[in-house]
């Protein structure tokens, strides 16, 4: 067990897991917010685009998205981000994680918007705010505060889903390194335990923090 800790860069692999999580979480938040605005907008076309995005992406397995990013987009269509295969796979993994989880972020935010009494949106419009202004000044700030708990769940799911990147990324990331250790040393409960513990350390505080935050930031009505 000590040998495994010494011979393999487990901390380095978890660092890549954290990088993937942070980068794709930011991406998912941005895309998810845009799609959520689409879905509550007064323009019919945007609402259709938003719901198409959510239903298409949310119901596609992440493994499929990952594999098709390299096999389809990069290999067949030639959309390469870098000539270096590992860099290319790294950024495609970030993009696919962001795109996939944006669908869940969107739905969390939309449910946050729905907690706001309809009268507030009507009041905002009636004092002359445009849709964009009422979104920015009235609805989204409250929606984010109301959606913290589900957003936290999405973030935890995202962190665990970074392991799916192993199907294209190789051994840089924790699930890939686990595959390599298993190949070299044989499968053992101890190795598995170390990696499981790593994810518990990453996700458990997040769950506690978002639960606390959601309680503290809840909009009192």
């Amino acid at each position, binding site marked *: 067990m000590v040998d495994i800790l010494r011979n393999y860069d487990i901390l380095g692999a978890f660092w890549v897991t954290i990088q993937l999580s942070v980068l794709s979480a930011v991406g998912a938040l941005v895309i998810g917010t845009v799609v959520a605005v689409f879905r509550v907008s007064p323009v019919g076309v945007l609402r259709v685009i938003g719901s198409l995005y959510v239903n298409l992406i949310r119901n596609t397995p992440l493994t499929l998205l990952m594999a098709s990013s*390299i*096999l389809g987009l990069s290999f067949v269509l030639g959309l390469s981000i870098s000539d270096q295969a590992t860099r290319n796979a790294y950024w495609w993994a970030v993009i696919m994680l962001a795109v996939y989880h944006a669908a869940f972020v969107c739905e969390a935010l939309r449910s946050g918007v729905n907690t706001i009494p309809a009268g507030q949106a009507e009041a905002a419009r009636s004092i002359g705010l445009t849709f964009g202004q009422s979104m920015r000044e009235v609805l989204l700030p409250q929606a984010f505060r109301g959606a913290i708990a589900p957003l936290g769940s999405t973030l935890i799911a995202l962190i665990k889903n970074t392991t799916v990147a*192993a199907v294209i990324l190789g051994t840089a990331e924790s699930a890939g390194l686990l*595959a*390599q250790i298993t190949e070299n040393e044989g499968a053992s409960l101890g190795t598995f335990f170390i990696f*499981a513990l790593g994810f518990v350390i990453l996700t458990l505080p997040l769950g506690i923090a978002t639960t606390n935050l959601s309680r503290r930031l809840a909009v009192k009505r």
Partner: protein
Amino acid sequence: MKSTRFGLVAAAAVLALTASACGSDDGGSGGSGGSGDSGGGDGIKIGIKFDQPGLGLKKGNEYTGMDVDVATYVAQQLGYDADKIEWVQAPSAQRETLISTGQVDMVVATYSITDERKQKVSFAGPYFIAGQDLLVRSDDSSITGPDTLDGKKLCSVTGSTSAQKVKDKVPGVNLQEFATYSECVAGLVSGAVDALTTDDTILAGYASQDQYKGKLKVVGAPFSEERYGIGLKKGDTEMCTKVTDAIKKMINDGDWQTAVDDNLGAAGYKPPAGNPPTPDACS
């Protein structure tokens, strides 16, 4: 108070995670693993690959490949007819566990004999000596071995021994890693990667597949030695001796050569030096 509650949650989470590790995807028909006794008893469970063309491939209810032929021959020598064999899928990561928990009686699944693995299971064999090689498009003559990989895109499977070896051998290699070799082959055929590296047997298996016939070739310059053995329960010397005798008999009969030619020969593949091998003594 609060911290103990968090402690409990943490403990429960860890327990749940650990428990899920014990599950097995083997849908086989129950029953504890058979002992190593021969004599045509209930049957024999053999672990093979289900997804490796030329070595161990499941197609409907048909099993084909060199590993399957070797396993069938050995089982027959142990007193089990072909219809007494129950095939179990043995993915690389689960091979030791399948053997040590008795879910299979033997594993014949491109299983290289290594010192690390010998600490967990016993090996009979080798029954074949493979070597790491390169698979390229048949019109590509620029790649002749690991030294000619500069500026080429290479593909292998995440965490595999082959991927690690090529990283050591060719520092700074441009390596794309996928979950399975099939994805690499797709990339190779489409021209997105220039070479696929792993054991030459696996490469020959892909090159012999109908849809790739004539499109791919094995370079034929192996740069490692993989000694395929039959994995058995640790310390079962009696079984090991019987299996070793069966392998020797298969090589002497000429059935070994037939199995190699039938399964890997279609793409002009010749087993590397050292074949047919002399099985090690059991210990």
